[in-house]
């Protein structure tokens, strides 16, 4: 059996009286791409925010490589090896592309490397996501797909073992989606990063994922291989039914 990189047991989070996620059990094996799907408001982004430490969890326990991360702060979780992107992109708008990526490298907290070495490494990630030549462009001047690439580069620069991708394909046109999928494929094969991925573009996520987890109204209703998910009546009713009807 492959090693479990991330495991959640009974993960629960509510906001006031609203139960955002309720007793969700899940796991990710090392090297997997796992898709997280579900209708709007199902609690997908909340789950990501709990994993990355933005919200403390109410109940349950989260393990990363066997150690509990339930009470850690976002920067500590990042340093352990969980990187993320945001549903609504959040690059540092007033900083250049290179500076954005540098923050990810600085975030590793390695003291032995100086700024010049880190800049060199930042350029590697800049090229890796296809932003070569945009080094000194200020992030706010980038197009949406470029901002998404930049955010991905910043997340990769933190040297993650697990990457949380929150709707990286949203708002992209078909050819841009193909490019993004290609990039994700390279991230997995070259950098050997495990990927946990929220997506609404069904065709893409079904094709790319090894396994799919379906959330509905804060609860996990199904988990399995993509072909099992698409034919599951419960899932179709909760989610696919909505959009296909």
């Amino acid at each position, binding site marked *: 059996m492959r090693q479990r990189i991330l495991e959640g047991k009974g993960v629960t989070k509510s906001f006031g009286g609203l139960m955002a996620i309720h007793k969700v059990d899940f796991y990710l094996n090392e090297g997997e791409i796992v898709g997280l799907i579900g209708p709007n408001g199902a609690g997908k982004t909340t789950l990501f925010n709990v994993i*990355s430490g*933005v919200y403390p969890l109410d109940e349950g326990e989260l393990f990363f490589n066997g150690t509990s991360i339930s009470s850690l*702060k*976002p*920067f500590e979780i*990042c*340093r352990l090896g969980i*990187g*993320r992107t*945001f549903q609504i992109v*959040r*690059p*540092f*708008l*007033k*900083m250049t592309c290179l*500076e954005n990526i*540098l*923050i*990810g490298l*600085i*975030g*590793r*907290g390695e003291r032995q490397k100086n*700024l010049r070495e*880190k800049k060199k490494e930042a350029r590697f990630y800049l090229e890796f996501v296809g932003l070569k030549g945009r080094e*000194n462009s200020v992030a706010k001047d980038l197009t949406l797909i470029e901002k998404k690439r930049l955010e991905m580069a*910043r*997340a990769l*620069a*933190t040297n993650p073992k697990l990457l949380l991708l929150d709707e990286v394909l949203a708002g992209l046109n078909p050819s841009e989606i193909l490019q993004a999928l290609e990039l994700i494929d390279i991230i997995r094969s070259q950098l050997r990063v495990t990927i946990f991925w929220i997506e609404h573009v069904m065709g893409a996520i079904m094709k790319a994922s090894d396994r799919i987890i379906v959330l509905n109204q804060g609860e996990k209703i199904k988990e399995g291989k993509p072909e099992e998910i698409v034919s599951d009546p419960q899932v179709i009713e909760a989610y696919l039914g909505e959009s296909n009807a």
Partner: protein
Amino acid sequence: MDKVEFMRFWIFIPFIFLTLFLPFFLSQYWLHVMIISLFYVMMASSWNLIAGYTGQISFAHAAFAGVGAYVSGMLAVNMGIPAWLGILIGTSIAGLLGLGLGYLCIRMGGIYLSLTTLGFSEILRIIITNEDRWTRGTMGLQIPGFFIEYSKMSYYFLFLIVSAFFLWVIYRLIRSEMGLSFRAVLNDELAASSSGIDTIRVRILAFTISSAMAGMAGGLYGHYLMLITPDIPSLGQMFLVLAMAVIGGMGSFIGPILGAFVLEILSEYIRIYGEYHVLLFGLVALGMARFAPGGIMGLLEKRWRLREMS
């Protein structure tokens, strides 16, 4: 070095000559104005470090200058400790107070820091005013000068050297990893912490460094005036520093330097209107914040960039 930075560099050279040789042609009065301007350069630039680069609006900056001035002054008066040592002790105490205050209220975020520092500032001023056994309250405490022989020229160069030192530290800091982290925190705190940046630590560190700098500036200021009053840690003083940074250009390196000189020299000309000049500066600062958030430097930079494009 991009083009804008290159131009900034060239503007600097005549400026350095000016600061080195101009004082020999100035009257005692204008020399005094220059010394006070340099004090405000230290104050506005170090305040800019927290307000402009990490986005934390502290109202305790003048209070920390007061801490520096009174600690050093009282040590000199009561224990005969030399000014340079007193200033260093005052700087450390201001830094420690900054660390404590920062530790307590920075995790609460944004507006709470402003409110707590505002309260701290007023409490300190009231204590200094009322504990007149030690501080002689509003009558002011007479303290020895920095130099044995009083000479405005010596003070000018002392202030110039310390200002240059401050600016060098700030310049190095904002171009270091720490400075990048400052800006990341300012841009987007959540994204910064999710990228591995310990945002609380970064903000407390900036606050501590900046407070210590204010303490040192205040200590020097006290030993120059040789009479320290609760006006040094007053809010009037604080808003003047704030106006200098905002009008000059918050978040830019040159902005607060420019703002300090422009406003100090200007206030000499409108001195006849008494304390109203602070009100005027406040209004101008408000207008600037609304219509030209980058201050004078922001406007200049925009013009340079436009010319570059055409």
